[in-house]
């Protein structure tokens, strides 16, 4: 079955709602409207307004209330309308959601999913193109995942709902309308990285929005006789160091690509781990291709600002030139 990522998410949420009566969705405009990206289209009609909840306009409220619902046995799936609007909820996420299992010595489970359409490249105005993953990945007690294909979207959202830990679920909005095959079942655990393309010369690490870009870069590199292995991380916290190390162990080189700012972006952690754990095997420094250390620019500038195919190819060149 070939569907868009939006449809795959919709199907996955529908399945989660069907399979478990304790699952509910909540967020701004997710009911009647079906969400600004239509991810929840039709679900309110079929599951009712008590399970697909149009909330007041307050993100702290959404996450705070989800915590209380989870304490009462529900499995809330929150939608934050855009990446740039998650910040009013950060206090509830960091000081409450992430910590309550720890504080209660495991007595409180908070199976809360926070879905966030994220990343740039869609010509939006400000606050609609942010990549906040580091804030969450740096916060112990949260899981952070992101899907790059409709198939992953379908399965990962269900896996996220089934998790007993809070999951920040990042949806690369730039690929919402990209279509792909969806398999009825999956055997890949939520936390496992996937090698999207095998290669031998350099390991290219991507996730979410940069995965298709990385694959495109790998294609072009192949034409030039360079064999690029593309790893899709999928899970950012925890992240699958084992798969990445194994790949880099073979290739001796790594490039990591993300849209978030350079300093303290996800690539920093990848580089820090690899330089430590593969010190003797790295033939070149881990190269980072990322957004710059500026606020996200006006959309007329975004295509150059974002790590695109050419900047990734340059990084591969740089890595291979060592």
């Amino acid at each position: 079955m070939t569907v868009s990522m939006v449809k795959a998410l919709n199907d996955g949420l529908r399945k989660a709602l069907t399979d478990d009566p304790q699952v509910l969705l909540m967020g701004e405009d997710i009911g009647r409207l079906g969400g600004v990206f239509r991810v929840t289209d039709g679900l309110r009609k079929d599951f009712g307004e008590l399970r697909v909840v149009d909330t007041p306009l307050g993100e702290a409220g959404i996450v705070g209330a989800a915590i209380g619902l989870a304490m009462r046995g529900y499995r809330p799936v929150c939608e934050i309308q855009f990446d740039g609007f998650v910040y009013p909820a950060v206090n509830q996420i960091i000081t409450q959601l992430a910590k309550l299992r720890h504080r209660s010595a495991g007595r409180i489970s908070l199976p809360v999913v926070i879905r966030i359409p994220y990343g740039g490249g869609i010509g939006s105005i400000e606050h609609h193109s942010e990549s906040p993953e580091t804030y969450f990945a740096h916060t112990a007690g949260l899981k952070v995942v992101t899907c790059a294909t409709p198939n992953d979207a379908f399965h990962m959202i269900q896996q996220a709902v089934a998790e007993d830990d809070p999951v920040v679920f990042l949806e690369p909005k730039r690929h919402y309308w990209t279509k792909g095959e969806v398999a009825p079942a999956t055997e890949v655990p939520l936390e496992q990285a996937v090698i999207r393309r095998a290669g031998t010369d350099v390991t290219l690490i991507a996730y979410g929005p940069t995965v298709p870009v990385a694959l495109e870069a790998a294609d072009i590199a192949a034409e030039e006789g360079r064999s690029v292995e593309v790893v899709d991380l999928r899970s950012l916290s925890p992240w699958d160091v084992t798969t990445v190390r194994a790949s880099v162990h073979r290739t001796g080189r790594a490039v990591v690509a993300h849209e978030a700012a350079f300093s303290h972006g996800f690539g920093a952690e990848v580089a820090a781990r690899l330089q430590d754990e593969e010190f003797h095997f790295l033939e070149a420094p881990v190269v980072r291709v990322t957004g710059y250390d500026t606020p996200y620019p006006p959309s007329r500038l975004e295509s150059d600002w974002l790590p695109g195919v050419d900047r990734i190819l340059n990084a591969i060149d740089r890595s291979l030139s060592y």
Partner: protein
Amino acid sequence: MANAVQDPLSEASLADPPIQLLDPSGKLSTDARLPLDLATVDLPALYRDMALVRRLDTEAIALQRQGELGLWPSLRGQEAAQVGAAYALYDRDMVFPTYREHGVAWCRGLDPVSLLGLFRGTTLGGWDPYAHHFNLYTLVIGAQTLHAVGYGMGLYRDGSTGSGDPDRDTAVLAFLGDGALSEGETNEAFIWAAAQNLPVVFFCQNNQWAISAPYSVQSRIPAAQRAAGYGFPGIRVDGNDVLACLAATRQALDQARSGGGPTLIEAVTYRVNAHTTADDATRYRAAEETEDWTARDPLERLRAHLETTGAVTDEYFTDLEQRERDLAERLRAGCRGLADPDASSPFEHTYAQMPADLRQQLREHLEFVSTGPQDGEQK
């Protein structure tokens, strides 16, 4: 229950209609709660500005349809609220808008073309907030209400409020939507303004919708009543009545300037178009509702009044139509003329002085941008 036990649901005000000074047929009335000296009001000018901002809005929508803008949040239906509020301002009063106050921006004297850049993607701002005492648009719901509070604290510390000097006393006008009433930050702004008796007027355009959420999702009582919870006055006016909006804002700003503290104004109005050009309102609201409200059009009633009273000549309308056409032309040309920002601009304005590391990033970026696609094949 009485006294210490308050049940506002039972209060009479719920059923009360908002205060009106100009009814949909164009008839003037007075209301003891909201005096307005008509001698101080230039009705033809009010109408002209409402008509022009409607045209500005219509033109921007057209530009969006033509692909010249990425998005446009229409103010249609809210012209009276915005123009009425703006007419109450002194030049030196500071305005903190949301993203929909094109009408206020117009009245503040901003070049209307400068409103388009944000939505065209050529800028994140577009104008000098100090030149017209009109802050940049704020997209994060509610955030600007706290900036208004801080600015008001500054005015108080400057001695620019309650001094009794009519050339000095200044106030702040903060706009917000009905949806914004639910953000914690908005409520903190109310709390600070109340506790410190700040010269801030909160102007809530209750246009009945926050994207697809009807007002009932946010509250079960009128928005103006929110102020009672903090201990400052709330007033509810017909937001499609430019005179009521002007009178309420003038009264509230006067009070604020003179040291009388904050007011919350609820202008009961309607978002006639979808939330933005990217939205599809048919998914969540009935066409009849929109038709009902369109019948209460804010321009029509003032036009009817002007025509019935003979306050203006035919020439006024001919002239106005010409002005509208000129404005449309100016917007079209201006929009297409908005230059793409320089590739270096984000780097230049992130800090007062560019840090060394960022300068290095800029160097690499400029090299990349000027070299173009390294591999020739594609971008």
